[in-house]
């Protein structure tokens, strides 16, 4: 026979449980189920000897040293891009025109990244050229029938609890519906102009270092002979109130594009050639005599 105190204890616990269940129902989002990704993330320092401005594979220098598995046709385009850059041109890198670098190059983190985890969507904000905001839908949706292509692409993700500890630790993402032109990195390693790229990512915190984030990325693209997998790493900046710089590319871009030709803006604001011997722009639409 249960004692009066035991019955009372059970009743109390039952009542408390009911209260907690009510509270539970009211709280739709348990952010403790997700990894703590708050703060400002920066590209991790590359290994010693790695050179280049934001290489796609962070473990190798940019350009040819990437050993991108390009088809012969796209390898030729890449070589032409390098040749153009060698004489002062932008090559295939569209960032020079203040166009968004898009996926997958945006995940090289040319500027700081913020990750906002909400139940239906994980947002990735990167203020580089354009204030890019990847929306990674984690609400279980399927691919839309006819989405408008974009530089950031359309991303569907799934949170996984890979170690069974009751907390999600890995975000698996697939991105499609991209537009172009895009390159892998500033040296101009091209993606295919058909824009049928598929980017798969596994994003997870390092088990031993909660301020290190991994993004294992595989790109499937018709410019490649096989899927290209790289391991990107991001480092959390340990500041209490991070400053988020505003990057408005046209505001500081010293390059002027007229048609397909690139010029520099001189210190006094005038147009000047970007290449030796470059001809001035065609002014046939101006009726007045040149200054």
């Amino acid at each position, binding site marked *: 026979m249960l004692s009066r105190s035991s019955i009372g204890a059970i009743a109390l616990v039952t009542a408390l449980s009911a209260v907690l269940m009510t509270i539970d129902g*009211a709280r739709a989002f348990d952010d*403790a189920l997700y990894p703590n990704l708050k703060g400002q993330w920066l590209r991790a320092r590359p290994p010693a000897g790695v050179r280049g401005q934001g290489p796609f594979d962070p473990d190798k220098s940019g350009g040819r040293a990437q050993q991108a598995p390009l088809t012969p046709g796209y390898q030729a385009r890449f070589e032409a891009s390098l040749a153009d850059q060698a004489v002062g041109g932008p090559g295939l890198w569209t960032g020079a025109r203040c166009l968004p670098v898009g996926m997958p190059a945006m995940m090289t983190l040319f500027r700081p990244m913020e990750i906002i985890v*909400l139940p239906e969507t994980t947002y990735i*904000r990167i203020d580089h050229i354009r204030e890019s905001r990847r929306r990674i839908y984690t609400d279980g*949706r399927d691919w839309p029938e006819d989405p408008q292509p974009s*530089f950031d692409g359309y991303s569907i993700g799934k949170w996984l609890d890979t170690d069974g500890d009751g907390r999600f630790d890995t975000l698996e993402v697939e991105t499609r519906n991209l537009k172009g032109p895009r390159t892998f990195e500033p040296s101009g390693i091209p993606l295919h102009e058909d824009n049928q790229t598929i980017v798969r990512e596994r994003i997870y915190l390092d088990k031993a270092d909660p301020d290190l984030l991994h993004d294992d990325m595989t790109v499937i693209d018709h410019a490649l002979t096989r899927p290209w997998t790289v391991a990107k790493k991001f480092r959390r900046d340990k500041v209490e109130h991070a400053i988020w710089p505003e990057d408005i590319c*046209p505001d500081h871009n010293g390059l002027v594009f007229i048609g397909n030709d690139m010029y520099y803006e001189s210190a006094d604001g*005038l147009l000047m050639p970007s290449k030796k011997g470059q001809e001035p722009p065609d002014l046939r639409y101006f009726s*007045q005599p040149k200054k």
Partner: protein
Amino acid sequence: MMFRSLIGTCMLAAALFTMLSEARAFDESKYPNLKGQWVRARVPGVTGQPSYDPTRRQGLEQHAPLKPEFQAVLEANIRDQAVGGQGGDPTFMCISPGMPRIMNPYGAMEILVTPETTHILIEHIHDSRRIFTDGRTWPEEPVDPTFQGYSLGTWIDTDGDGRYDTLEVETRYLRGPRAFDAAGIPLHPDNESVIRERIHWNKDDPDKLTNEITTIDNALTHPWTVTKTYVREAVERPEWYEEVCTEGNGHVGIAGQNYFLSGDGLLMPAKKGQAPPDLRYFKQTQK
């Protein structure tokens, strides 16, 4: 015996409470449900581009409380625009409209509420904001000014129902040039604007959001307060169109002058009789 079971009960209850309080760091039910896609509410009879005071057309009809010298700037901007210039509106070169104009808003808006920050994402030129609600104070070190500014906010439960309904925001540390609208109603070039907002969600009309904005600026004779209204689109999964201003922008800025790109990719004047750019740094004969 009874004492021991009571202790056990209390320990169990305490453990349950502790588990919940630790696990549930973010109680989103305390905040208004602002999910979805918000757009500018149309005001019947008001035509033209979005205006700062949404109940009046942009430009002179706004009756902006400008000081005389800034009223003169506005009128000069309107004259410049009448002959093909851009008159005080820097957005033609894909420069952000900045605060308070970005809250017109021009594109679809998404509001992400987290305990520390409310993010306002607007698909336009460069219009998205962070409103810090983590209780911080203004930074002691000067911060680099931005077109969006640095915003501190406080969530308030105005009707005492246990749920926040209003976000009070103050924005400082702005840069320029900025205008209130596309007609070129100017803000002061000292960029000392202070912008206060009350973004209010009414639980009885949950698909409507009001934003009472007061701009304090040295171009104005007194603070200028307007109320903007946003409505939530009734779609379950809205599509977010990517707006890339620099893609296909037909304006070319050289030495402070605006030119157009023709259909065949050549430079052409933006105004009647406009002189061509100075090409003194080119040695060769012009094409």
